[in-house]
């Protein structure tokens, strides 16, 4: 049984997408990849206010994995929206452009979703709920099911384009997925990075200023596979898999686990042409 190649009313060429924060704002891979080979590309999460990101070091390689503490460096909603209004370069890409966003409050999500839906080059939205809510002491939005319900309900009422909701693996994503489904989400993305940490034993210091960091890459694949399986058992809307996918074989495993789409993250850094190769292989 094959899942339909659709999210909401939006059709996809194939099941291969790229993951947010690993594909820039779309332009950066144009020398390496023919985007028309892909089902879609997801852009870097844009936040309500500009963020300059965390101090270095921001990344650390681990065996088969990557820790990152980038701090959502981005130019902020106003600037990105105005620039796209002036020049919607996303329209030129022959693939579904998925625009990822995160607010500082429930209202921010809805407002940003409404504005970005106006941009013709954007085919679909991703609500990144796995980012800290400054009004709740920095806990992620998805740590509170009430937030998930309100953000998804309000967004579903407001916007005309399909959207996915991206969860953190550290929260109750199964429950959150069910809430997202009945509140009107068209898909869920399982998941963002895992919680990780690195310490210098010699100097007894934390590697990252924020102490914890996001963990991704091939090392997380077995955990992501289990999470995707659990979420896919819980909902009927499409599940977009994210976590450690590095080959067509990995992609197939996630599809067997119940995902309808798979997204390539960290591996875009390792092999910028990979998403295209995987798309060709799993055809």
């Amino acid at each position: 049984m094959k899942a339909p190649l659709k999210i909401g009313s939006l059709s996809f060429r194939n099941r291969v997408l790229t993951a947010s924060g690993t594909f820039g704002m779309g332009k950066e891979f144009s020398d390496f990849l023919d985007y028309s080979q892909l089902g879609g590309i997801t852009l870097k999460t844009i936040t309500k206010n500009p963020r300059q990101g965390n101090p270095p070091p921001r990344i650390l390689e681990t065996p088969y994995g990557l820790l990152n503490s980038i701090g959502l460096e981005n130019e902020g909603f106003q600037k990105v929206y105005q620039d796209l209004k002036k020049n919607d370069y996303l329209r030129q890409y022959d693939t579904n452009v998925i625009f990822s966003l995160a607010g500082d409050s429930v209202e921010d999500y809805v407002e940003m979703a409404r504005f970005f839906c106006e941009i013709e080059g954007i085919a679909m939205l991703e609500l990144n709920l796995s980012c800290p809510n400054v009004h709740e002491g920095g806990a992620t939005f998805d740590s509170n099911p009430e937030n998930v319900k309100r953000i998804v309900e309000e967004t579903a009422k407001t916007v005309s384009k399909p959207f996915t909701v991206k969860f953190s693996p550290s929260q109750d994503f199964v429950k959150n997925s069910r809430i997202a489904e009945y509140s009107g989400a068209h898909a869920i993305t399982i998941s963002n990075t895992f919680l990780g940490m690195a310490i210098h034993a010699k100097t007894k210091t934390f590697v990252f200023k924020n102490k914890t960091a996001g963990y991704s890459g091939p090392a997380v694949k077995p955990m992501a596979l289990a999470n995707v399986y659990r979420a896919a058992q819980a909902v009927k809307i499409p599940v977009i898999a994210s976590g450690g996918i590095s080959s067509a074989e990995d992609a197939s495993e996630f599809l067997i686990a119940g995902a309808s789409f798979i997204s390539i993250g960290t591996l875009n850094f390792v092999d910028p042409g990979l998403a295209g190769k995987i798309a060709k292989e799993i055809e």
Partner: protein
Amino acid sequence: MKYQEQCEIVEKIIDHSYLFLKFRTKNIAKNALAGQFVNIRVNNSFTPLLRRPFSITDTEGDTLSLLILLKGKGTEALFGKKIGDFLDIIGPLGNSFPLINRRAIFVAGGVGIAPFFFLSKTISSGLLLFGVKSKEYLPELSAYSSSFSEVKIASEDGSSGKKGTVIDLLSEYDLSDKVVYACGPNPMLRAVSKILRDCAQVEAYYSIETIMGCGFGVCKGCAVETPSGQYKLACTDGPIFSWNEVKL
């Protein structure tokens, strides 16, 4: 334009603590400018996972040369490669050295010499000041095509050239109306800045090294702080920065 290519190793020399590799490329070498770098996938497996960045040491037609100092697992894997092996390389990446119409002084610390062979072919008649720990860290300079007007060497243990550091060499020159290009460890660059602060009308550019993820502006992992507390990316805003543009 950036390229991802499978490049064949056509020459390999182990020279003291350095590895010299020459690759045949399709487009990378032809499009490279002095100061730019490439990001190499050293193994097809995930050990190590990330690519490793290296300055372009020279190009000749479609060949690309790199000078690599043995450091950890990534560079160790490169030392084990053989002529005829193919490596996945992306490049040319980053900005290039600005060409300034002044007498040039190249200040290199250790493997920081790497970009200057290439640069000396564009800015000929520059003076090279080269500091190494000891003669084991001194590559066979005559093996590389370059056109420095003069070369001065300092080694910390005195086993080659003057006993001391490259900073001792640099402090003997009046830098006003010169252009200084420097590449080396951060402590060396900080020492260069200390000298520059006392000179009027000096122009200077550093090629800097950071931990790097993708190499083309996507992961934002190679941030460097500016004096105003903002961040720039070593891979796309750099790796060449004006000396007072970034905090080291």
